């Protein structure tokens, strides 16, 4: 701890002089109001501090006290269902304390210190036994949906259990166990502190092999993301980034969702806050909010805290991953995080790189996404956890050459390209099928083959090549008109249109349509492609194209999104109808030929 005095104030950056032993990334409390800041540069005895709150009213001479700690957050029971600002101050507590507006210098702890939790110790723990970081000490039923595991914190590497935990109700700060280590006896509480800029340790990384099922057809079927994978979703404003992120938060089959609203609209966070407690998780019947943690640093909140918010979010996610859960982090939008970096960099008068962004932008982005992965967690049981990250990017004018997009594409494995034109046609999700990609197909082939159907991969490839062909044919039509196409090519256009309109288009506002299980997705695609194959054969048998375009079953395909998940046998009926309707025509045409 040291004390110094402010000598300079420029926006969110202040310079303080005279602090003894100031360290990089140490947290400092600024002025009488104790505004929280972080040291980001040192020159002699001058410390450059980014302040996480509004700095108006600060001037030279006011005092600065360092805390000796890095920017860190509380980890323990009480995280779920919370809404935090960028430095883990609960916004609901701030609201209760100071009302509608976030005034300066509100100091509230990240987790409730008074609340008592019912703690159950892990079975078979004996005093004197060897124990290591990550081992379970017990658990707390945090919400009806989620069990919160209490682990030996990572900084106690190895030791002997001196005092075993006992059943009972504890606050998070009460000592539940004692561990004898080389450096003396350590007390373990349910809460521990972790610096957000340091990734939490793991044993090792594994290759992701299961999909993060999202219920969004274009994602799951064409461009899937793996559990423990990374994806990015860049697009111009109005293309639907946030809606896709919300859909993922609602429907993806992760155990825990951490949603980071980084520099985005206040109302969007309100929307999540109002909607999620009412949405019921289909698997457990409990509100989705019970597995969700929200980080909200909206665009009008101080810019430095925005920079910290993504780290706060991913640290919480890592903590739950360490318990062996699959966790998904949804960050909307990483561009605002990058811009916050740029703003601080400008105030520090650093030499700018591309578009004014600091030269270390790509490495910061890479560091962030590398915290994702499927891992063997700390602990002697070798349990596995996964952390998936989906980051939205908001490039200026939707231009993908933007440095943030480019730096992100270098490290992520899935790219969902949002397209303006699709959004104008209100084709949502506006994920372009020709420019998007997923590099997880190979990892996931086994899963889809075993769990869904053996020809999943073949079906997906066939669909993709049809869509590719469509774009080529459309070019041609633009030059020479539809009439000059062969019947086969006309059929390609027709089927592609059906894929686009009846499968890829999915309404986020229609309760029947907003989530589709993998098995139904497969049946839907299969129906479209079956019809296509039957029609191709029919064309060979000289059945007129017009007849094939008017098949009544096409109407059914157009409405198949409304088929209930538990009535998939309706697809069998549809398949039969296709056959019989085409046979009818073929009989007729044979008749007319003779």
């Amino acid at each position, binding site marked *: 701890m040291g004390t110094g005095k402010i000598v300079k104030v420029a926006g969110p950056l202040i310079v303080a002089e005279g602090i003894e032993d100031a360290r990089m990334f140490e947290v400092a409390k600024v002025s009488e109001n104790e505004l929280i800041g972080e040291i980001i540069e040192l020159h002699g005895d001058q410390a450059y501090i980014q302040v996480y709150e509004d700095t108006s009213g600060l001037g030279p001479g006011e005092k600065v006290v360092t805390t000796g700690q890095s920017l860190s957050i509380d980890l323990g029971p009480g995280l779920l269902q919370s809404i935090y600002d960028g430095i883990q101050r609960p*916004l609901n507590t701030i*609201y209760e304390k100071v009302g509608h507006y976030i005034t300066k210098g509100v100091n509230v702890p990240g987790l409730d210190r008074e609340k008592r939790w019912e703690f159950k110790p892990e079975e078979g723990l004996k005093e004197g036994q060897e124990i290591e970081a990550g081992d379970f000490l017990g658990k707390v039923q945090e919400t009806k949906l989620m069990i919160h595991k209490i682990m030996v914190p990572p900084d106690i590497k190895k030791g002997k259990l001196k005092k075993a935990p006992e059943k009972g109700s504890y606050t998070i700060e009460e000592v539940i166990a004692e561990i004898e280590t080389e450096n003396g006896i350590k007390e373990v509480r349910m809460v521990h502190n972790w610096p957000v800029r340091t990734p939490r340790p793991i044993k090792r990384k594994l290759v992701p092999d299961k999909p993060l099922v999202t219920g969004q057809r274009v994602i799951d079927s064409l461009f899937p993301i793996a559990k423990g994978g990374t994806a990015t979703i860049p697009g*111009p404003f*109005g293309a639907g980034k946030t809606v896709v992120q919300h859909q993922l938060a609602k429907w993806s089959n992760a155990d825990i969702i951490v949603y980071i609203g980084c520099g985005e*609209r206040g109302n969007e*966070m309100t*929307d999540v806050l109002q909607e999620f407690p009412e949405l019921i998780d289909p698997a457990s019947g409990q509100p989705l909010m019970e597995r969700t943690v929200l980080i909200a640093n909206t665009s*009008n909140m101080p810019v430095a805290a925005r920079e910290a918010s993504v780290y706060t979010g991913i640290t919480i996610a890592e903590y739950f991953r360490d318990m062996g859960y699959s966790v998904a982090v949804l960050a909307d939008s990483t561009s605002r995080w990058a811009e916050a970096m*740029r703003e601080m960099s400008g105030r520090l008068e650093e030499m700018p790189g591309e578009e004014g962004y600091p030269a270390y932008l790509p490495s910061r982005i890479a560091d962030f996404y590398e915290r994702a992965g499927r891992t063997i967690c700390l602990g002697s049981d070798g349990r596995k956890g996964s952390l998936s990250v989906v980051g939205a990017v908001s490039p200026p004018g939707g231009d993908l050459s933007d440095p943030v997009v480019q730096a992100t594409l270098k490290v992520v494995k899935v790219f969902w390209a949002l397209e303006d034109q699709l959004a104008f046609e209100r084709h949502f999700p506006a994920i372009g099928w020709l420019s998007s990609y997923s590099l997880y197909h190979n990892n996931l082939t086994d899963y889809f083959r075993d769990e869904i159907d053996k020809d999943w991969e073949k079906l997906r490839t066939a669909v993709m090549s049809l869509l590719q062909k469509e774009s080529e044919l459309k070019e041609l*039509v633009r030059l020479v008109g539809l009439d000059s196409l062969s019947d086969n090519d006309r059929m390609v256009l027709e089927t592609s249109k059906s894929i686009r309109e009846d499968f890829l288009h999915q309404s986020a506002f229609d309760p029947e349509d907003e989530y589709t299980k993998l098995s139904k997705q497969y049946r839907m695609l299969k129906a479209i492609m079956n019809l296509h194959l039957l029609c191709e054969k029919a064309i060979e048998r000289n059945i007129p194209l017009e007849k094939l375009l008017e098949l009544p079953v096409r109407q059914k395909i157009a409405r198949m999104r409304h088929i209930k998940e538990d009535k998939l046998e309706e697809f069998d009926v549809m398949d039969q109808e296709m056959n019989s309707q085409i046979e009818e025509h073929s009989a007729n045409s044979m008749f007319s030929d003779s």
Partner: protein
Amino acid sequence: MVTEYTTINEIAGPLVLLNNVKHATYEELVEVELPNGEQRRGKVLEVDHDKVLIQLFEGTRGVDVKETKVRFLGKGLELSVSPDILGRIFNGLGTPIDDGPKIIPEKRLDINGIPINPYARVYPEEFIQTGISAIDGLNTLVRGQKLPIFSGFGLPHSELAAQIARQATVPGSESSFAIVFAAMGITFEEANYFIRDFQETGAMERVVLFINLANDPTVERIATPRAALTAAEYLAFERGMHVLVIMTDMTNYCEALREVSVARKEIPGRRGYPGYLYTDLATIYERAGLLKGEKEGEVLEGSITQIPILSMPDDDKTHPIPDLTGYITEGQIILDRNLHHKGIYPPIDVLPSLSRLRDKGIGEGRTREDHSEVANQLFSSYARSKEVEELAVVLGEAALTDTDKAFMAFGKSFEAKFVKQALDENRTIEETLGIGWELLKSIPETEIKRIKDEYIEKYLPRKERENKEKSDDSSSL
């Protein structure tokens, strides 16, 4: 304890650098007295040891190094508010400029405001009927939304904004909107158009105007929207009024910001605008919405709905100002020059326009059950008609299929009947949806994919359709 300094060291553009200052703070308000006795105001941009950088709102003309006095006032720029501000005209800094009496302040509020806690917000979902089909039907405005108009030079954005101000109501609610109008760098004539319109319709007594015209000091524009929103926040959240804030033209605001940034020799972002433009605009646009009431589940009486207007330089939507605005606001209404040339008012290009809050503000109990699906169908059909139009340019109309021709005709009548309306035409939402259904009759029913069968049965009577097909007249379109 007000100390007076005469230690100005440097003057550049709107900025003044002072030496040997004690106790200045960031964002503090200063008063500058010129040698001729004139008083101006400014704020502290940066304090470095004893050097202070000040931005003067009314410019630096006439300021000298020797005699000009600077006083630090120990607070930020404040606006005096009371219910009497209604019906009054202020300059960009919040000083009355009409001939009315002095405002006796009920309180003084810092114009920078304080960020609203997202936890304290209530999601806006109350439909506002503007009487304009392209907005109500397709890009619906709701109470507490921020929905900008992206326009270009010479397009009728002022007319549109004034029409919205005149006609906006919440169906089933008695209270009419109070209007806070902020003019930034627009011409006298443009400002006068609004003032006359407010006077003629008798709205003046519920209007507050903040006027900074094109020939007023540029830097004052940086304070103007903040002063206006402070007034709006007071009226909305302390007086329980529903406030509509019209701000025009945000482009001029951003240019003022750039001017200061360049004078400070900051590293520029895109097109010379400062890197913090997004954050700065957010501190304006985010001052809209609804707040929670005293008890759980209640809404605090009062709301702020924002309609900022900005002109896109060279009609370019990717220019930093519209681009960053679009990322903050909840949608955008885009005006199109081609439609304007075709004589269509309002020339709203519905396809790139968007209201993000639409889907929760419409439907059964708010507007009508079929609203969302009709809107989506109109969007996709109109988009299709545009595609067909392009095709027709290359191949000629003769090469089009019958379906394509139907879509092309639909597109034309959509513009002429749905989008186009008179300056004083105030359509109810039922009328708007009615026109929509009328237009959908002209396309084959198999192509109506976005609407549920039951609504088609209910709102698009089959008999009528069949009759129409027989008579085959396009004149009724």
